[in-house]
């Protein structure tokens, strides 16, 4: 069971995505059959709070507060594939 708030969103292609943090990493999982959680990137805060969004192009955005309390947004063009997240 994931820790923290679970954010869900359905993309234009019918996939429903869930994003959450387990206190260490930000994870993402599709509802497609056989899908496993994807570890997107390490989450340096401990409160488990993230915001998950997508735009019409399919790009994914995850926003969180870093250790200094600054708001950070990372995005991925690759449906959350690990290692593809860049800071906006």
């Amino acid at each position, binding site marked *: 069971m994931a820790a923290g708030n679970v954010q869900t969103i*359905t993309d*234009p*292609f*019918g*996939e429903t995505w869930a994003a959450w943090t387990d206190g260490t990493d930000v994870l993402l999982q599709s509802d*497609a059959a056989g899908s496993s959680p994807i570890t997107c990137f390490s989450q340096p805060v401990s409160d488990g709070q993230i915001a998950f969004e997508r*735009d*019409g*192009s*399919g*790009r994914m955005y995850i926003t969180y507060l870093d250790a200094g309390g600054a708001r950070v947004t990372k995005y991925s*063009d*690759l*449906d959350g*594939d690990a290692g593809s997240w860049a800071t906006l």
Partner: protein
Amino acid sequence: MAARGVANLVITDKRSDGYPTSQSWGMDWVMSDLARGANRPGAYQNDAGSVPEWELIGTRAVPALNAVILQPIFAAGDMDLDDWTQEASTYFKEVQPTGFDSAWLKYYDATEDQYGTLRSNSALTINPSWALNFLRAQPAHDQAEPVAISITVGVQASMQYQLYIPQRWIAGAAAPDSRYPSLWKSEDTGATWSLVDECRHEGARSWAQEAFDRPTWVWWLTLGDYLVIYLGDTCWVYHEAGLEIPAGMVEVTIEGGQAAFQMEQIQFTPSGTIERLVGIIPPEYITDDPDTIDTLGDVDDQRTIVATMETAGDTIWPKAALATSDPYHTPVLYAIQATREAVYDEGDASLLFDNVVNAGDKGKLHNLRWTIAQDWRGSSFSGKLLTAQGYDEYGLTGNERAQLSISLDTTPPVYHVVGTGYLVAPEYPRDPQLPSNEVIELQFRDRLSRLERKAVGDCPAFDGWYLSDALNWLFCQIGGVDPAELLLDDTATEYQFAWAPGSLNLKFDAQTRVVDAADQICRAAGRTWGVDQLGQVFTATSGDADYDGTPDYTLDESTVTEEDHIYPVHTAQDVSQARNQIVVLGTDAAGNEVRACWRMTDSMSNPTSSPYLGDLACDVMVCPPGADPYLLASLQGRRLATAAQHLIWQTNGKPNLLPGMFVAVTIGGIGVSPGTVMRIIESQGSLNEQGECASAFCAVAV
């Protein structure tokens, strides 16, 4: 001294040519009638293509092509990524879009400048038809170009076609107009591509701005020489003569964002029918149903169309059965044509009069005149017949067939036929110098006198027919000309009229005269037609025959007697026939539409030119398929510009000289340069009561 001549006039029964006991009949049904049918690709699961006047079972109308095909089947099953090989990217996966119960393949890289390609592991058949549904994500807010999808068929073959939605971008070229789908072709295994068509017709959506977040249906139907491409609500037809798409893999490339698709080669239901729901009651002048029912369509050994005429009581209607043993290809039906040939009675060629046979006792001819017209139309002959027994002796009332032959008074006589025609209207004038009413004035006109009285009626369209068959139908089936008296030029059996799906350009209204229809048919085929002195209908290509170097007659000092009267005339007589500009509408070897133009500008401005018209006199012609429009313009121009110098020449009897023959002029002092060769374009003759035979000719320099 005038030459003396003798005549032979033979008159036979009105029924000499036979008469129809059952007349010809032809009807056409063009599949453009079905254009009102619902034909959205999304309606493929039923036979909703039926329209009130037709019933379609297992078949579907293709209104954009004016055609009917077998019902396409698109199963829309699960896509399996294992059936494809990822090229240039690994970012494809299987998804199930909302509202669909089957798996699609999604390209999930949303990066603007990236793309991914899937190549099928199995090949499509030759000339494939396929369906593809795709769903595009919107462009990112900072992205200029929309997501594009392209489908390439015939991959790894030398000839490949590619549908690009929207426009393809060519490296190094100006930014593409991304609004429209485009069709590309490569003839070198994909090394270079050229744009062959765009979907820009009215109503085409802007593919840069629409069709996001909802699926778009694409149907690609390869039907003969046509590609019929449905893009959502838009239909687009591409034509290429000899179109052939090789069997090969298919590639789907998604570029500039996320998109998903499902794709499958279309199959066709094995058989289906189209049947007319509106019947026809045939006219009374045919004795049976049409005996031939044919189709215009695209068929082969595996793809067949069999048309039949259904009957219920007095009513008939057409039905066509389409079938294929090749599930990936369908026959294509464009038109149904039903015909029935006329049945002619042999007639009655009983002799009514022969002045040689009857000479001395019953009949005597005098004041004979004959004219053979310049265009071999409307030739005529006339004379007076003295009868010993009175008006009723020969029972002549009009429309009897006759032939007039003339011989110089030699032993034995050598007769030359100068006219074959039909009695127009015998007149019985009262001659006060004769003891009783024994003079009949006879006028005969050539076969036009009969043809001009015939309308084509229910005549089949001649699109796709050979010229010889079309003229046979007009002149023999309807016109009553004995096929043995129809002399077609050597290539008339090889000339085939083109046809375009859904349109019949050679379909005549029922009230059209046979003569007018024949004119139109011949003009379309670059021919002329006429009726010769023997009564035969003939066709000729490109006007007059060329001079072969041997004249039929030489006008020299020894032939010019005191009876000869020669009047040269320059231009004035016949400017009506002259042209100084010919435009031929056609297609060049590269397939470009051209307006081939032949001009003689001097003719408009230079009084010393020949012919000098001082005006624009122009004709526009349509080039027959396969002909060279430039060559045709040049030939026709030179022919029509030669009506410059005429010679009118009266002489004693020369009944053997006819229009089309060549006269070499070697004498001087008559206004025609010695050495000029002239073509006789019209001839006249007479034989008076004293037996004096004279001729007059009009000739034109060649």
